[in-house]
Structure formats: C-alpha cells, structure tokens
C-alpha cells in the first residue's frame, strides 16, 4: 500500500532516548546524516546542543564513535582524528565534525578556516539553529537580523545581518559546500552521500529549527525549515571548488513573512522591519542566482582544490 514520496536509508544509527527537546531539528539532521554516512563514521562534537543530546555518560545515543571536544575545536579535532586513522592505515573512515552555529560561525571559525584552507579530509556539518541555544538563546553571528534572543531583547533586536558562512567557506576554495534542510531529507541525504564520495574538506550548512529558541511550536519544525527554503531565506544549493554554484531545489519564492510569522522570535517585527528583511532576502537570492548563472562559464579545469576528486 505504500506510496513513498522519497526513500531514505532504513538503517538507524541514532537511537531513541536522547535528550533533545521535542521537535529538535538538530536531532533530525544527525539521524539523516548518519543514515547517509553509515557506520564507518566517527562524530566529533564540540560544545553545542549535541553535547547534551547524545546522552548522559556513560551512555550514548549514537551507534558510531563520538568524541566530545572543546567548543572551538570541532575542525581541528576532526582533523587530528582523520590524521590518526590515516597514520594507522584506516583510510576509509568518515570523520564528521558536527558543530552548532556558535562553534562554527564564532568561536570555532578559526580552526574551521584553518582546516578548510588545508583542505583537511573531513566532513564538517554546521547545524545552525541561529543562536547559542544550549546556553539559553544568546545571539551568535548566525542569528538573523531582527531576531530576538536573550542578548538581543525586543527593544534592541539583532541589527546586523547573519554572517554568510557559505560565502566564507567558498572563499577557501574547498571541494564541496552545500546547504541542506531537515525538511528535504532526500536532498539532505543525497548531499551527504555526495560529500562522502569526495575527498578533502566538505562543509554542509544545515538550518536546524529550534522550537524553544525560535519560540515556535515543536510540530512546526519541518514546516518552518521548509518555509525557510521556499521563501528563499535558506536556499538549497551546492558550491563546488568554492566557485561553481548550483541550486538543488527551486524555491517557490514565497514572501518571507510566511517564514517569520510562525516564529515568536520575530513577533515584534513591524511590517517595515519585515519589508527590510524581504529586501535583504531578495538581494541574497538574486546574488545566488547570478552566481549560479555565472557558474556555467567557469572552466572546471581551473579548479584549485588539489584533493577534490571523487575517491
């Protein structure tokens, strides 16, 4: 009787009983990622929600080795783990750095940049819930403009736009960058599988809804993440070699208000504020489209990453 819309691998490497809040996007993301990468994977988790979600020691909800590490060290520890394996002849293990937006955009940015510049053979996933959620919703450089957090109260919401982490990583000319959404599991898994098939630094940016932090309903997590895509707030695309851009999903181009209105963190925004955000989103979307268009003109022989080839 089944009418499958899309198939995802049956294997469950993440188990039940974890400590995530109901409706947690980061948890869905981990589940998909491990389905795509399989059991020959080691996960490196710096300080972030997942430090808690994985469970209270001496237990772990993940069926792969997990290494908890310091806040700013996801990329560097992952680098070392990969090097350790390679040094011992174990070259087929995926090393997955799994960091939040704080650990990626902010405190871990240096080690991430270093690893990216060296083109370390790791997969770095940033599950971005757009604030320091684990510490109680403080703004990060991933917090979008206009959003409420406990350190950007409604009287003075975040005035600066979100850091464009994909652009920042693209500037490192790494072989593969992709955005992915928990609401498009097939696209998500396809990208992680693609990442798995490549060598060198692979970076995935995942928008990860956080019901407590976004002041949204747990049941709406998938809907909100989908609206982020369809409103062009968070388009789904890939960047190869830091320069060749392609879209993996054509958004419907819904008004950004559709996305904002399901989240309490944006409730204080006036129509004028929303219009401003819309303008910013439109601009970013046009920029991305131009890059996609221009990408067809780029000769792949000019790729600069030395290890980007498929394994």
């Amino acid at each position: 009787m089944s009418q499958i819309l899309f198939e995802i691998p049956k294997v469950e490497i993440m188990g039940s009983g974890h400590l995530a809040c109901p409706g947690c996007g980061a948890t869905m993301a981990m589940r998909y990622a491990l389905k795509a990468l399989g059991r020959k994977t080691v996960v490196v988790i710096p300080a972030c929600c997942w430090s808690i979600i994985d469970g209270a020691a001496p237990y772990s909800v993940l069926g792969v080795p997990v290494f908890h590490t310091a806040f700013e060290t996801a990329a560097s520890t992952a680098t070392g783990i990969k090097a350790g394996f390679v040094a011992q002849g174990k070259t087929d293990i995926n090393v997955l750095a799994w960091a939040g937006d704080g650990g990626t955009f902010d405190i871990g940015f240096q080690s991430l940049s270093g690893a990216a510049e060296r083109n370390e053979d790791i997969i770095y996933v940033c599950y971005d819930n757009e604030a320091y959620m684990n510490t109680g919703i403080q703004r990060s450089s991933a917090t979008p403009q206009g959003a409420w957090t406990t350190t950007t109260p409604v009287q003075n919401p975040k005035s600066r736009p979100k850091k464009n982490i994909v652009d920042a990583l693209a500037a490192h000319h790494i072989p593969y960058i992709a955005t992915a959404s928990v609401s498009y599991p097939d696209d998500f898994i396809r990208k992680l599988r693609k990442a798995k098939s490549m060598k060198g630094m692979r970076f995935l940016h995942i928008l990860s809804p956080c019901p407590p932090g976004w002041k949204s309903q747990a049941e709406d997590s998938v809907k909100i993440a989908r609206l982020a895509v369809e409103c062009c707030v968070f388009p789904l695309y890939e960047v190869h070699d830091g320069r060749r851009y392609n879209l993996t999903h054509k958004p419907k181009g819904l008004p950004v208000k559709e996305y904002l209105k399901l989240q309490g963190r944006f409730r204080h925004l006036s129509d004028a504020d929303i219009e401003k955000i819309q303008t910013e989103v439109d601009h970013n979307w046009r920029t991305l489209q131009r890059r996609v268009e221009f990408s067809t003109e780029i000769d792949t022989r000019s790729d600069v990453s030395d290890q980007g080839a498929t394994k």
Partner: protein
Amino acid sequence: MKRVLEAQLDKYFNPQTTAEIKVIEGTHAASHAAKLARVKTISAYPITPQTSIVELLSEMCASGDLEAQFIKVESEHSAMACLIGAEATGARSFTATSSQGLLLMHEVLHWAAAARLPIVMVNVNRALAPPWNIWTDQTDSLAQRDTGWIQFYAESNQEVLDTILMAYRLGEQVMLPVMINMDAFFLSHTAEPVAIPKQNLVDEFLPAYRPEFTLDVNDPRAFGGLTKPDRYMEFRYNIQKAMETAARLIPTVAEEYDYLIGRHHGTQVEEYRTEDAEYLLVTSGTITGTTRIVVDQFRDQGVPLGLLKIRTFRPFPDQAIRNAVAHVKKIGVIDRNISFGSGGIFFNEIKAAIYNAKVHPLLNGYVAGLGGRDVTPSVITDIAEHLIKSKQGKDLIWIGVKK
C-alpha cells in the same frame, strides 16, 4: 668540571647502545626523540624558540625518514586539539610549543589529560609577554600546574631526548599526557653532543601504542560525554591515582631505560653529593648544571653542600623531597619563575611537601634568572653563601634585581 665531563662521557656515550653521536641543539634532540618514538601524528604551530623542533620533523616527514602525518595547523590551540583527536584513534602523537603558545593551549591541555590521552609535548620554557621576551623562564609551564599533565624538566639535550622516550612509556602506561620542558636557548639553541640510541633498543623499550579504548567503528563509544556529579568526582580521583602511579613508575621506567639504553638521569629527583650534606640547593632545568660545579667547589672547600635536582613537577616528588631533607639543616630553592603574590613556584611546592615531614630544616626561596638572565656560578655561589649564613628561613629572596 673535569669530573662532570668524565661522568657524562661514561654515562652518555655507551657504544653498544648508541647508533650515532650528534652534536645538536636541544630542539633537534627533541626531534630525534620523536622520530625514535615512531610518532604517527605531529601537529604544531611555529613559535620561537620551539620552531626548530618541528622544522626538523617536517624535513624528516618530507624525506620519508619518519612516517607520520604532520598537520601544520593555524594555532597552538588547534595543534593540541588535533593531537587530542589523533591520540584518541590510537596514534602516538607529538607536538612542541613554548610560552604564549602553551598558554593558548591551556584549555585543551586539561582536555587531553582528562580524556586520558598520553600525548607527549616538548615545551621550551620561555618568558611570557609583555614585554616580548624570547628567553628562558619557567612560568609558562608551571602555569599549567593543574592541567593533569606530567611535567619533566631537563638539564641537558641528552636528557631531553631520553626523557621524551621515557615520557611515552610512562604516559601510555598511566594514560596521562607528558610535557618535557627545556630552557630556551640554554638548551634549545645550544649544541651538545647527544647520543642517538639504536632504534631496535628504543623499540624494545617503547612498544607500539595500543590503548584499550580508541575511536573504533567496530566498538563505538562516546568519549567525554556529559557526566553528572554522581560520577565526575571519580574520574578526577582516577586522574590523581594515575599521577600517584606515575610517581611510582618513574623509577622503574628509568631503570628499564638504563638497562636497555644505558643511561639514567635520576627518578623524580636526582641527588648530587647529598651524602652528609648539611646544606642543600634545589634546582631544575639548566641551572642544575651550573649548580653542580658550585657544589663541587664548596665540597672541595669542605663545605657539606649538596644538590637536589627536581625532574618532575607533576607528579610532585613529595616523598623524595622528604627523604632528601631528612638530614640537612638548610635548604635553598632556586626558582626561575614567579607566582605573583606568592613567590617561587618550586619553593612553595617544596615548602608544602615538607610540612608533613618529620624534620623542618630552614627553607629559603630564591628567584633568579627570569626572562633568560644568566644564572652564573657566581650567582649560585652567592646564593649558597647566603643560605649557609641564614639564621631564619625566608620565602622570597630576589637575586640580582637591579636597584
């Protein structure tokens, strides 16, 4: 002087165990030790005067003399984080740093120790800024007192090499990381003859690293997960126990090293001419070598002066110190470091150690040679004379501060 050299020649250059004698700087002695230990991963960031260690190692890796993954990271913090990862896979790893670099690592030094990863690191003791100063001073490493790292202080380039090999053996046995400290320039950039032991003997002394738990996809486990108060304290207790075990094992490891390679640099401490000594100077690092000469001079004059060299700051050799001071009347501790608001750091540790001893000799704390200022035989002679004349112990005596 002649005696020291003869002793050294005897001790250091055993032709049966030596592959080669090289006249090299301390930094290169460290590089050779890492190579002999067959390290699998190296990660480092440049800082004077450590840099020559990893420069030579990069050459060794590039030439294929050393089969290791060398990750040239963008900071010391990343260097240590990187090795934490590598070591967790079961790969023996090595790094070197100094001064500011060591301070930047501080957070992850705790991580390495509490994750029970026996990484070995050479720290070239260098003064801290500001103002900029690249010369020797121990405050950088002593500030890492509570990180859970075993700390050795070397007196010679040979001791640097030998201690690194022993550090792997010891650290891997007790699952704690080890830091080997050498003085900036006095060792790091001073060429000395160094016996490079034969690789097969080193291999015998130091078997491959095979930890019981590693990041293993066939035995998946989470390392360092959220631990509640009901278990956390036991993990801390275990680290302390490991330190105590290390204290117990250090003499054994030293003996085994002596047995196989034919060299012994002492245990947690080394006593020099302490037989019947009434006065005792306590030193660490290169000041020790200078002090040996002064002790010889005093002995030649019939003054019962002895020397206690501290080799390990962590675990701290409380018992060895209590034993050494059992029969002396006066002790002078020479510190090339300062804990602001208190005094010399070795002094304070020794003072604490002897509190529970049966006898309480007079105890003076001397701070000398900060930021690379020379501690010459005459400086030490002054200290010894001051000690001998002292009527009452004094915690902090500055040596050579210009008025």
